[in-house]
């Protein structure tokens, strides 16, 4: 078995009131292989975070199935049976995790807590590990005693990253983990993720809007529009030969760090063009386009 995660026909509709239902995710399927970094990109509001939260079991699904290491964890009973494994081996870094840190805990306590909760705490070893984790995310030991309110936004996000890798999970779902970080620290975190993948075989779902980072980091990418995957392919194939009009629009909008190219051509895409009953077709090996 090669897939750490499989998502089958995931549908997530939120009923707001009798007159309004938001169709956040409309039947998407994908697999994440062991040791792979799978990128999920797409328009703001297209359902990326909802996919992430559905995988984590934070919402019950409208329909569809989710398999983690072959177990169908979208089933409540199976989820409960595998609870310990899931808690240890599947971690999420939220888009706004910095606001989710407990403001009354010191940074060291925040990182120590999941180790204790999963019975992985060993005083001498773990305390050294905490120093090392902080260093890996570019913070020094003086941060241990600080509270979330005393540090900057990017520093908080890095604490959240340190906490989520502390347990050495097999799958990390990273929902825009580095959007709030400056480029030098971003580079450090990206290099760290790459190391975790290459040396320890971590798998990642990497949700991001910074396409130059996605291109650099991910092995495979899926592009979403309005709750659907419209194109998926190995990263270089997608960037070299985008086929869906939304993917083309997305790639044309990448801001280039060169003021001369300020007003480069941006291909607009109207999402209303998307038909509701297309399917993903394999146009070349591993390259699927919604049509």
């Amino acid at each position, binding site marked *: 078995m090669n897939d750490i995660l499989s998502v089958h026909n995931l549908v997530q509709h939120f009923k707001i009131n009798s007159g*309004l239902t938001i169709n956040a995710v409309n039947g998407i399927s994908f697999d994440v292989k062991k040791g792979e970094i799978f990128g999920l990109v797409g328009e703001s509001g297209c359902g990326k975070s909802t996919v992430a939260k559905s995988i984590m079991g934070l919402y019950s699904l409208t329909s569809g199935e989710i398999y983690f290491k072959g177990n169908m964890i979208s089933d409540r009973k199976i989820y409960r049976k595998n609870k310990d494994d899931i808690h240890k081996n599947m971690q999420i870094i939220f888009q706004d995790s910095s606001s989710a840190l407990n403001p009354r805990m010191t940074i060291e306590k925040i990182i120590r807590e999941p180790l204790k909760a999963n019975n992985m705490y060993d005083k001498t070893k773990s305390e050294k590990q905490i120093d090392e984790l902080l260093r890996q995310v570019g913070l020094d030991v003086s941060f241990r005693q600080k509270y979330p309110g005393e540090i900057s936004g990017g520093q908080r996000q890095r604490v959240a990253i340190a906490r989520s890798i502390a347990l050495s999970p097999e799958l990390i779902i990273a929902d825009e983990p580095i959007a709030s970080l400056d480029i030098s620290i971003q580079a450090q975190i990206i290099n760290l993720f790459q190391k975790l993948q290459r040396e320890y075989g971590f798998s990642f779902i990497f949700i991001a809007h910074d396409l130059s980072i996605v291109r650099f980091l991910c092995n495979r990418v899926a592009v979403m529009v309005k709750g659907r995957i419209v194109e998926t392919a190995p990263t270089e194939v997608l960037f070299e030969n985008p086929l869906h009009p939304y993917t083309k629009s997305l790639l044309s909008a990448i801001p280039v760090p060169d003021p001369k190219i300020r007003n480069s051509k*941006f291909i607009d895409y109207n999402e209303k063009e998307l038909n509701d009953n297309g399917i993903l077709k394999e146009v070349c090996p591993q390259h699927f386009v919604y049509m």
Partner: protein
Amino acid sequence: MENILEIKNLSLSFYTPSGEIEALRNINLQLGKGEILGIVGESGCGKTVLSKTVLRLLPKNAKIKNGEILLNGKDIVPYSESKMRGLRGSVMSMVFQDPMTTLNPTIPIGKQITESILKHSNIKYNEAKKQAIEMLDMVGIDSPEKRFAMQPHFFSGGMRQRCVLAIALASKPEILFADEPTTALDVTVQAKILDILLKIRDETRISIVFITHDFGVVARIADRIAVMYAGKIVEVGKTEEIFYDPRHPYTWGLLSSLPYFAKKGEPLKCIPGMPPVMMNLPKGDVFATRNKYALDIDYEKEPPIFDITDTHKAATWLLDKRAPKIKPPKFFGGECHE
């Protein structure tokens, strides 16, 4: 260009149980009317604190040690809290890095925008509501009428960020402090939002302080860029000057870590080491330990700010006429090499 904001010799510290944190150190900065000033620099260098200092939104343990903040020529540092309240929103408003610090989770988004409009103009509720829906539409939220009555947790991360921008613009401020206002947006929506901001600037002559770590974004939107390091402005200049003729080794480091210049398969370049915790700072240039171009004097004496052109300045001893000539890395017109 006439300056709407002028910051002179501004220093600010936080006083914490473990000691004094020198968050801003002798900041000098001007913002012209209708100008977009980008601020870049590593996490923790003081970008947010700088904006919050101008708006006076800092906790009690923060003290301005020195300096003036001239708004339309008048120093606002001595202003009372009630006078500052009068300025916030109407004259200056801020988009916070974390949208949830602005949004009230229990109040529908539309109502929060409407209230912001009503607070700063004398129009009827229904008119304000209409404007609020237009603003939601402007920032690209679809079905704004339906979304009007929904609470923030029904919105995606990027939608919340756009709502916060709508709230900040609703009061029609003269200066907008936008703290990473597009980090949660995909690039297509981001491109549209940047265009909207440029259009609003051209129409209303609003001045914008745009904090971001995305060099692609500053390249597109900023007229001028200030680079901050450890509470100081180390380089400032026109956007073209910073990109095509950067002079500070720290700016070189930032530009070299861009994935844009990276080669697939190689690790991204980073600036070695970490920014200092701004407590008990060493003498000399605090960047010296991370700077491979550091001179002996960098460990002794803080560099002054040197003028390169009328608009371009940098604080590095490399610009002193006694300094050895070095070959700076090139970023454009060829690839990035060192």
